[in-house]
Protein backbone atom coordinates (compact mmCIF):
# COMPACT_ATOMS: atom_id res chain seq x y z
CA UNK A 1 0.00 0.00 0.00
CA UNK A 2 2.95 2.30 0.66
CA UNK A 3 3.80 2.52 -3.03
CA UNK A 4 0.22 3.24 -4.00
CA UNK A 5 -0.21 5.86 -1.28
CA UNK A 6 2.86 7.72 -2.52
CA UNK A 7 1.38 7.75 -6.04
CA UNK A 8 -1.91 8.99 -4.59
CA UNK A 9 -0.12 11.72 -2.62
CA UNK A 10 1.37 13.03 -5.85
CA UNK A 11 -1.89 13.17 -7.76
CA UNK A 12 -4.75 14.40 -5.57
CA UNK A 13 -7.69 15.47 -7.70
CA UNK A 14 -9.98 17.82 -5.85
CA UNK A 15 -13.73 18.12 -6.21
CA UNK A 16 -15.27 21.21 -4.71
CA UNK A 17 -18.39 20.52 -2.65
CA UNK A 18 -20.34 23.67 -1.85
CA UNK A 19 -22.29 22.82 1.29
CA UNK A 20 -24.20 26.12 1.60
CA UNK A 21 -21.13 28.37 1.90
CA UNK A 22 -21.08 32.17 1.91
CA UNK A 23 -18.72 32.02 -1.12
CA UNK A 24 -15.80 33.56 0.74
CA UNK A 25 -13.86 30.29 1.12
CA UNK A 26 -14.65 29.41 -2.51
CA UNK A 27 -12.92 32.56 -3.70
CA UNK A 28 -9.88 31.77 -1.55
CA UNK A 29 -9.80 28.18 -2.88
CA UNK A 30 -9.58 29.49 -6.45
CA UNK A 31 -6.53 31.50 -5.43
CA UNK A 32 -4.66 28.23 -4.90
CA UNK A 33 -4.77 27.69 -8.68
CA UNK A 34 -3.35 31.10 -9.57
CA UNK A 35 0.33 31.60 -10.51
CA UNK A 36 1.21 32.80 -7.02
CA UNK A 37 0.33 29.53 -5.22
CA UNK A 38 -0.05 27.08 -8.17
CA UNK A 39 -1.03 23.78 -6.51
CA UNK A 40 -0.60 21.99 -9.85
CA UNK A 41 3.11 21.70 -9.01
CA UNK A 42 2.03 19.14 -6.36
CA UNK A 43 -0.13 17.36 -8.95
CA UNK A 44 -3.33 18.77 -7.47
CA UNK A 45 -6.04 19.50 -9.98
CA UNK A 46 -9.64 20.72 -9.71
CA UNK A 47 -12.00 18.28 -11.44
CA UNK A 48 -15.58 18.84 -12.48
CA UNK A 49 -17.02 15.42 -11.65
CA UNK A 50 -17.09 13.66 -8.29
CA UNK A 51 -16.27 10.36 -10.02
CA UNK A 52 -12.78 11.68 -10.80
CA UNK A 53 -12.15 12.98 -7.28
CA UNK A 54 -9.71 11.89 -4.56
CA UNK A 55 -10.41 14.79 -2.23
CA UNK A 56 -13.77 16.38 -1.48
CA UNK A 57 -13.29 19.99 -0.45
CA UNK A 58 -16.31 20.88 1.70
CA UNK A 59 -16.89 24.57 2.28
CA UNK A 60 -19.79 26.03 4.22
CA UNK A 61 -21.98 25.05 7.12
CA UNK A 62 -24.02 22.03 6.04
CA UNK A 63 -27.72 22.88 6.21
CA UNK A 64 -30.79 20.63 6.15
CA UNK A 65 -31.41 21.22 2.46
CA UNK A 66 -28.01 20.19 1.10
CA UNK A 67 -27.25 17.46 3.68
CA UNK A 68 -28.82 14.56 1.67
CA UNK A 69 -27.05 15.77 -1.48
CA UNK A 70 -23.69 15.95 0.31
CA UNK A 71 -24.19 12.43 1.67
CA UNK A 72 -25.03 11.21 -1.83
CA UNK A 73 -21.99 12.95 -3.34
CA UNK A 74 -19.77 11.24 -0.76
CA UNK A 75 -21.28 7.90 -1.72
CA UNK A 76 -20.66 8.56 -5.41
CA UNK A 77 -16.94 9.19 -5.05
CA UNK A 78 -14.72 6.17 -5.81
CA UNK A 79 -12.69 5.01 -2.78
CA UNK A 80 -10.13 5.94 -1.50
CA UNK A 81 -11.50 9.43 -0.97
CA UNK A 82 -10.60 12.08 1.62
CA UNK A 83 -12.77 14.90 2.90
CA UNK A 84 -11.30 18.27 3.77
CA UNK A 85 -13.41 20.88 5.54
CA UNK A 86 -12.37 24.39 4.53
CA UNK A 87 -13.21 27.31 6.79
CA UNK A 88 -14.72 27.78 10.22
CA UNK A 89 -18.17 26.64 9.04
CA UNK A 90 -17.45 22.90 8.65
CA UNK A 91 -15.10 23.11 11.64
CA UNK A 92 -17.44 24.59 14.23
CA UNK A 93 -20.54 25.99 12.58
CA UNK A 94 -19.23 29.54 12.82
CA UNK A 95 -21.86 32.21 13.33
CA UNK A 96 -24.55 29.95 11.86
CA UNK A 97 -24.23 27.24 14.51
CA UNK A 98 -27.55 28.12 16.22
CA UNK A 99 -29.39 28.71 12.95
CA UNK A 100 -32.72 26.90 12.45
CA UNK A 101 -31.63 25.01 9.31
CA UNK A 102 -28.09 23.95 10.21
CA UNK A 103 -27.64 20.19 10.69
CA UNK A 104 -26.86 19.29 14.28
CA UNK A 105 -24.05 16.80 13.72
CA UNK A 106 -22.01 17.48 10.58
CA UNK A 107 -19.96 14.32 11.07
CA UNK A 108 -23.12 12.25 10.55
CA UNK A 109 -23.54 13.78 7.10
CA UNK A 110 -19.97 13.43 5.88
CA UNK A 111 -16.89 12.18 7.77
CA UNK A 112 -14.37 15.01 7.55
CA UNK A 113 -10.73 13.90 7.73
CA UNK A 114 -9.04 17.28 7.91
CA UNK A 115 -10.21 20.68 9.12
CA UNK A 116 -8.73 23.97 7.91
CA UNK A 117 -10.13 26.70 10.20
CA UNK A 118 -10.27 30.36 9.24
CA UNK A 119 -12.97 32.68 7.97
CA UNK A 120 -11.81 32.37 5.23
CA UNK A 121 -8.49 30.52 5.74
CA UNK A 122 -5.58 32.11 3.92
CA UNK A 123 -4.30 30.18 0.88
CA UNK A 124 -1.11 29.47 2.88
CA UNK A 125 -3.20 27.79 5.58
CA UNK A 126 -4.94 25.63 2.97
CA UNK A 127 -1.59 24.69 1.47
CA UNK A 128 -0.38 23.69 4.94
CA UNK A 129 -3.45 21.49 5.38
CA UNK A 130 -2.89 19.82 2.02
CA UNK A 131 0.79 19.28 2.85
CA UNK A 132 -0.28 17.56 6.08
CA UNK A 133 -2.61 15.25 4.14
CA UNK A 134 0.20 14.47 1.68
CA UNK A 135 2.54 13.84 4.62
CA UNK A 136 0.12 11.33 6.16
CA UNK A 137 -0.21 9.53 2.83
CA UNK A 138 3.56 9.33 2.43
CA UNK A 139 3.78 7.78 5.90
Amino acid at each position, binding site marked *: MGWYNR*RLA*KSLWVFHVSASPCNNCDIEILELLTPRY*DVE*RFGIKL*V*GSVRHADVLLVSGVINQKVAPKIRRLYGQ*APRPVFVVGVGTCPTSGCTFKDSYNTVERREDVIPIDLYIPGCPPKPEAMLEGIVKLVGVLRG
Partner: protein
Amino acid sequence: MTGRLLFQTLIFPGFVFTAVVGLIVGWVDRKVSARVQFRAGPPFFQYFNDIAKLLGKETLIVRDGVRWLFIAAPIAALGTMVLAATIVGSALFLGEGAGGDLIVVMYLLMLFALLVALGASAVGNVFASVGAAREIKLLLADELAFLLVCLVPVIQSGYRLRLTEILAFQSEQGAVIGSVSGALAFIIGLLTVQAKMALPPFHIAEAETELAGGPFIEYGGPLLAFWKVSQVAMFAVFPFLLILLFWGGVPTSAGAVVGLVLKYLLIVVLIILIKNTNPRLRMDSALSFFWKWAAPAAFLAVVLAVFGV
Protein backbone atom coordinates in the same frame (compact mmCIF):
# COMPACT_ATOMS: atom_id res chain seq x y z
CA MET B 1 5.33 -12.92 -38.95
CA THR B 2 2.65 -13.15 -36.25
CA GLY B 3 5.25 -12.55 -33.56
CA ARG B 4 6.52 -9.50 -35.40
CA LEU B 5 3.02 -8.07 -35.79
CA LEU B 6 2.34 -8.71 -32.09
CA PHE B 7 5.59 -6.96 -31.19
CA GLN B 8 4.65 -4.01 -33.40
CA THR B 9 1.15 -3.77 -31.92
CA LEU B 10 2.10 -4.22 -28.28
CA ILE B 11 5.61 -2.81 -27.92
CA PHE B 12 7.40 -0.64 -30.45
CA PRO B 13 5.19 1.65 -32.45
CA GLY B 14 2.14 0.26 -30.67
CA PHE B 15 0.87 0.25 -27.12
CA VAL B 16 3.96 0.68 -24.88
CA PHE B 17 5.73 3.21 -27.13
CA THR B 18 2.59 5.25 -27.75
CA ALA B 19 1.58 5.26 -24.09
CA VAL B 20 5.04 6.32 -22.89
CA VAL B 21 5.42 9.02 -25.57
CA GLY B 22 1.87 10.19 -24.92
CA LEU B 23 2.33 10.39 -21.15
CA ILE B 24 5.59 12.31 -21.54
CA VAL B 25 4.15 14.70 -24.14
CA GLY B 26 1.06 15.08 -21.98
CA TRP B 27 3.42 16.37 -19.30
CA VAL B 28 5.05 18.70 -21.87
CA ASP B 29 1.56 19.99 -22.65
CA ARG B 30 0.75 20.71 -19.00
CA LYS B 31 4.21 22.18 -18.32
CA VAL B 32 4.19 24.50 -21.35
CA SER B 33 0.62 25.56 -20.55
CA ALA B 34 1.72 26.33 -16.99
CA ARG B 35 4.70 28.34 -18.19
CA VAL B 36 2.45 30.29 -20.58
CA GLN B 37 0.35 31.22 -17.53
CA PHE B 38 3.49 32.02 -15.44
CA ARG B 39 3.00 28.98 -13.21
CA ALA B 40 5.53 26.34 -12.19
CA GLY B 41 3.61 23.38 -13.57
CA PRO B 42 3.52 19.70 -12.57
CA PRO B 43 6.61 17.44 -12.12
CA PHE B 44 7.86 15.14 -14.88
CA PHE B 45 6.21 11.92 -13.69
CA GLN B 46 2.82 13.59 -13.15
CA TYR B 47 0.89 11.66 -15.80
CA PHE B 48 2.48 8.35 -14.74
CA ASN B 49 1.39 9.02 -11.15
CA ASP B 50 -2.11 10.01 -12.31
CA ILE B 51 -2.54 6.81 -14.30
CA ALA B 52 -1.10 4.61 -11.51
CA LYS B 53 -3.46 6.27 -9.04
CA LEU B 54 -6.51 5.87 -11.30
CA LEU B 55 -5.72 2.18 -11.90
CA GLY B 56 -5.73 1.56 -8.14
CA LYS B 57 -9.04 3.26 -7.40
CA GLU B 58 -12.46 1.71 -7.01
CA THR B 59 -14.36 0.89 -10.22
CA LEU B 60 -17.90 2.21 -10.08
CA ILE B 61 -20.32 0.76 -12.63
CA VAL B 62 -23.47 2.68 -13.52
CA ARG B 63 -26.77 1.23 -12.29
CA ASP B 64 -29.06 2.89 -14.87
CA GLY B 65 -27.46 2.44 -18.24
CA VAL B 66 -25.85 -0.07 -20.58
CA ARG B 67 -23.24 -1.70 -18.37
CA TRP B 68 -21.29 -3.69 -20.96
CA LEU B 69 -20.96 -0.65 -23.22
CA PHE B 70 -19.88 1.46 -20.25
CA ILE B 71 -16.97 -0.95 -19.71
CA ALA B 72 -16.27 -1.82 -23.35
CA ALA B 73 -16.14 1.73 -24.76
CA PRO B 74 -12.94 2.94 -23.00
CA ILE B 75 -11.13 -0.34 -23.66
CA ALA B 76 -12.12 -0.31 -27.35
CA ALA B 77 -11.14 3.36 -27.59
CA LEU B 78 -7.66 2.61 -26.29
CA GLY B 79 -7.51 -0.30 -28.76
CA THR B 80 -8.39 1.91 -31.75
CA MET B 81 -5.79 4.51 -30.76
CA VAL B 82 -3.12 1.81 -30.34
CA LEU B 83 -3.98 0.31 -33.74
CA ALA B 84 -3.83 3.73 -35.42
CA ALA B 85 -0.48 4.38 -33.72
CA THR B 86 0.81 1.00 -34.88
CA ILE B 87 -0.08 1.61 -38.52
CA VAL B 88 1.25 5.19 -38.56
CA GLY B 89 4.34 4.33 -36.51
CA SER B 90 5.44 1.23 -38.40
CA ALA B 91 5.17 3.14 -41.69
CA LEU B 92 7.06 6.15 -40.34
CA PHE B 93 9.74 4.47 -38.20
CA LEU B 94 10.17 1.03 -39.76
CA GLY B 95 9.16 1.80 -43.33
CA GLU B 96 6.71 -1.09 -43.63
CA GLY B 97 2.94 -1.31 -43.88
CA ALA B 98 1.40 -3.01 -40.85
CA GLY B 99 -1.75 -4.31 -42.53
CA GLY B 100 -3.45 -0.99 -43.20
CA ASP B 101 -3.41 2.10 -45.38
CA LEU B 102 -4.60 5.70 -45.00
CA ILE B 103 -8.28 4.70 -45.24
CA VAL B 104 -7.90 2.37 -42.24
CA VAL B 105 -6.19 5.11 -40.20
CA MET B 106 -8.95 7.63 -40.98
CA TYR B 107 -11.56 4.99 -40.14
CA LEU B 108 -9.91 4.22 -36.78
CA LEU B 109 -9.64 7.90 -35.87
CA MET B 110 -13.32 8.39 -36.69
CA LEU B 111 -14.20 5.28 -34.67
CA PHE B 112 -12.55 6.82 -31.61
CA ALA B 113 -14.93 9.80 -31.66
CA LEU B 114 -17.87 7.42 -32.11
CA LEU B 115 -16.69 5.34 -29.14
CA VAL B 116 -16.50 8.46 -26.98
CA ALA B 117 -20.10 9.23 -27.91
CA LEU B 118 -21.18 5.59 -27.34
CA GLY B 119 -19.46 5.43 -23.96
CA ALA B 120 -21.10 8.70 -22.98
CA SER B 121 -24.57 7.56 -24.05
CA ALA B 122 -24.20 4.34 -22.05
CA VAL B 123 -24.22 6.05 -18.66
CA GLY B 124 -27.62 7.75 -18.56
CA ASN B 125 -26.32 11.11 -17.39
CA VAL B 126 -27.68 14.37 -18.78
CA PHE B 127 -24.28 16.05 -19.01
CA ALA B 128 -22.79 12.99 -20.66
CA SER B 129 -25.54 12.88 -23.28
CA VAL B 130 -25.05 16.57 -24.08
CA GLY B 131 -21.33 15.82 -24.37
CA ALA B 132 -22.03 12.87 -26.69
CA ALA B 133 -24.25 15.01 -28.91
CA ARG B 134 -21.54 17.65 -29.12
CA GLU B 135 -18.88 15.03 -29.87
CA ILE B 136 -20.91 13.82 -32.88
CA LYS B 137 -21.56 17.39 -34.06
CA LEU B 138 -17.85 18.17 -33.82
CA LEU B 139 -17.12 15.00 -35.80
CA LEU B 140 -19.54 16.18 -38.51
CA ALA B 141 -17.79 19.55 -38.49
CA ASP B 142 -14.16 18.48 -38.73
CA GLU B 143 -14.41 15.23 -40.69
CA LEU B 144 -14.88 16.83 -44.13
CA ALA B 145 -11.91 19.17 -43.69
CA PHE B 146 -9.79 16.30 -42.36
CA LEU B 147 -10.65 14.03 -45.32
CA LEU B 148 -9.84 16.79 -47.83
CA VAL B 149 -6.56 17.54 -46.05
CA CYS B 150 -5.58 13.85 -46.18
CA LEU B 151 -6.44 13.77 -49.90
CA VAL B 152 -3.72 16.28 -50.82
CA PRO B 153 -0.68 14.01 -50.25
CA VAL B 154 -2.61 11.13 -51.83
CA ILE B 155 -3.15 13.16 -55.02
CA GLN B 156 0.40 14.53 -55.06
CA SER B 157 1.92 11.06 -54.79
CA GLY B 158 -0.08 9.88 -57.80
CA TYR B 159 -3.25 8.57 -56.09
CA ARG B 160 -1.52 6.18 -53.71
CA LEU B 161 -3.21 5.25 -50.44
CA ARG B 162 -0.47 3.16 -48.85
CA LEU B 163 1.40 5.14 -46.21
CA THR B 164 4.75 3.61 -47.22
CA GLU B 165 4.23 4.68 -50.85
CA ILE B 166 3.38 8.26 -49.78
CA LEU B 167 6.60 8.25 -47.74
CA ALA B 168 8.63 6.81 -50.63
CA PHE B 169 7.23 9.49 -52.95
CA GLN B 170 8.31 12.20 -50.49
CA SER B 171 11.80 10.68 -50.15
CA GLU B 172 12.25 10.95 -53.93
CA GLN B 173 10.40 14.16 -54.85
CA GLY B 174 10.64 16.23 -51.67
CA ALA B 175 8.12 16.73 -48.88
CA VAL B 176 4.50 17.55 -49.72
CA ILE B 177 4.67 20.62 -47.44
CA GLY B 178 7.13 22.18 -49.93
CA SER B 179 4.36 22.80 -52.47
CA VAL B 180 1.66 25.48 -52.21
CA SER B 181 -1.19 23.00 -51.87
CA GLY B 182 0.77 20.95 -49.34
CA ALA B 183 1.54 23.97 -47.15
CA LEU B 184 -2.09 25.13 -47.25
CA ALA B 185 -3.34 21.63 -46.40
CA PHE B 186 -0.80 21.32 -43.57
CA ILE B 187 -2.02 24.53 -41.90
CA ILE B 188 -5.66 23.43 -42.12
CA GLY B 189 -4.56 19.99 -40.98
CA LEU B 190 -3.08 21.49 -37.79
CA LEU B 191 -6.40 23.18 -36.95
CA THR B 192 -8.38 20.05 -37.79
CA VAL B 193 -6.12 17.94 -35.59
CA GLN B 194 -6.87 20.39 -32.79
CA ALA B 195 -10.54 19.50 -33.15
CA LYS B 196 -9.85 15.79 -33.55
CA MET B 197 -7.87 15.81 -30.30
CA ALA B 198 -10.67 17.79 -28.60
CA LEU B 199 -8.22 20.44 -27.41
CA PRO B 200 -9.10 24.12 -26.94
CA PRO B 201 -10.63 25.95 -28.83
CA PHE B 202 -12.54 22.78 -29.75
CA HIS B 203 -12.94 21.13 -26.32
CA ILE B 204 -16.65 21.65 -26.76
CA ALA B 205 -17.64 18.12 -25.80
CA GLU B 206 -15.56 17.87 -22.63
CA ALA B 207 -16.12 21.52 -21.55
CA GLU B 208 -15.01 21.21 -17.92
CA THR B 209 -16.63 24.46 -16.82
CA GLU B 210 -20.10 23.85 -18.23
CA LEU B 211 -20.47 20.08 -18.69
CA ALA B 212 -18.10 19.01 -15.87
CA GLY B 213 -16.17 16.56 -18.02
CA GLY B 214 -18.93 15.86 -20.58
CA PRO B 215 -18.65 12.32 -21.96
CA PHE B 216 -16.31 11.24 -19.14
CA ILE B 217 -18.39 12.56 -16.24
CA GLU B 218 -19.44 9.14 -14.90
CA TYR B 219 -16.11 7.40 -15.50
CA GLY B 220 -13.83 6.94 -12.52
CA GLY B 221 -10.89 4.77 -11.54
CA PRO B 222 -9.39 2.30 -14.06
CA LEU B 223 -11.96 3.05 -16.80
CA LEU B 224 -11.05 6.74 -16.64
CA ALA B 225 -7.39 5.71 -16.86
CA PHE B 226 -8.18 4.00 -20.19
CA TRP B 227 -9.74 7.24 -21.50
CA LYS B 228 -6.82 9.32 -20.23
CA VAL B 229 -4.20 7.05 -21.84
CA SER B 230 -6.05 7.06 -25.16
CA GLN B 231 -6.38 10.86 -24.98
CA VAL B 232 -2.66 11.39 -24.44
CA ALA B 233 -1.93 8.68 -27.05
CA MET B 234 -3.48 11.11 -29.55
CA PHE B 235 -0.45 13.33 -28.89
CA ALA B 236 1.60 10.52 -30.42
CA VAL B 237 -0.78 9.60 -33.26
CA PHE B 238 -1.82 12.92 -34.80
CA PRO B 239 1.52 14.81 -35.00
CA PHE B 240 3.19 11.68 -36.42
CA LEU B 241 0.37 11.32 -38.95
CA LEU B 242 0.87 14.96 -40.03
CA ILE B 243 4.64 14.38 -40.36
CA LEU B 244 4.02 11.20 -42.33
CA LEU B 245 1.58 12.81 -44.75
CA PHE B 246 3.26 16.18 -45.28
CA TRP B 247 6.81 16.26 -44.00
CA GLY B 248 7.94 12.71 -44.48
CA GLY B 249 10.89 10.57 -45.43
CA VAL B 250 11.93 7.28 -43.81
CA PRO B 251 14.58 8.10 -41.15
CA THR B 252 17.64 6.08 -42.11
CA SER B 253 20.52 8.14 -40.68
CA ALA B 254 20.97 9.51 -37.13
CA GLY B 255 20.49 13.07 -38.43
CA ALA B 256 17.13 12.13 -39.91
CA VAL B 257 16.00 10.69 -36.56
CA VAL B 258 16.94 13.94 -34.79
CA GLY B 259 15.12 15.84 -37.55
CA LEU B 260 12.03 13.69 -37.01
CA VAL B 261 12.06 14.41 -33.25
CA LEU B 262 12.48 18.15 -33.91
CA LYS B 263 9.58 18.19 -36.41
CA TYR B 264 7.46 16.29 -33.89
CA LEU B 265 8.26 18.72 -31.07
CA LEU B 266 7.58 21.71 -33.33
CA ILE B 267 4.11 20.40 -34.24
CA VAL B 268 3.35 19.54 -30.60
CA VAL B 269 4.39 22.99 -29.37
CA LEU B 270 2.29 24.63 -32.12
CA ILE B 271 -0.71 22.57 -31.00
CA ILE B 272 -0.11 23.52 -27.35
CA LEU B 273 0.22 27.22 -28.19
CA ILE B 274 -3.00 27.21 -30.24
CA LYS B 275 -4.59 25.47 -27.26
CA ASN B 276 -3.41 28.10 -24.80
CA THR B 277 -4.28 31.21 -26.78
CA ASN B 278 -7.85 30.41 -27.74
CA PRO B 279 -11.07 30.30 -25.73
CA ARG B 280 -13.69 27.60 -26.25
CA LEU B 281 -15.88 28.10 -29.31
CA ARG B 282 -19.62 27.65 -29.30
CA MET B 283 -20.85 24.65 -31.27
CA ASP B 284 -22.30 26.81 -34.07
CA SER B 285 -19.14 28.89 -34.43
CA ALA B 286 -17.03 25.72 -34.61
CA LEU B 287 -19.37 24.32 -37.29
CA SER B 288 -19.26 27.54 -39.30
CA PHE B 289 -15.47 27.71 -38.95
CA PHE B 290 -15.05 24.25 -40.45
CA TRP B 291 -17.79 24.40 -43.07
CA LYS B 292 -17.31 28.02 -44.20
CA TRP B 293 -13.53 28.39 -43.98
CA ALA B 294 -11.53 25.25 -43.31
CA ALA B 295 -13.31 22.86 -45.68
CA PRO B 296 -13.39 25.28 -48.67
CA ALA B 297 -9.72 26.11 -48.10
CA ALA B 298 -8.90 22.40 -47.95
CA PHE B 299 -10.92 21.93 -51.14
CA LEU B 300 -8.86 24.68 -52.76
CA ALA B 301 -5.72 22.79 -51.69
CA VAL B 302 -7.12 19.63 -53.30
CA VAL B 303 -7.82 21.52 -56.56
CA LEU B 304 -4.31 23.01 -56.49
CA ALA B 305 -2.88 19.53 -55.90
CA VAL B 306 -4.80 18.14 -58.90
CA PHE B 307 -3.21 20.87 -61.04
CA GLY B 308 0.17 19.98 -59.55
CA VAL B 309 0.89 23.28 -57.78
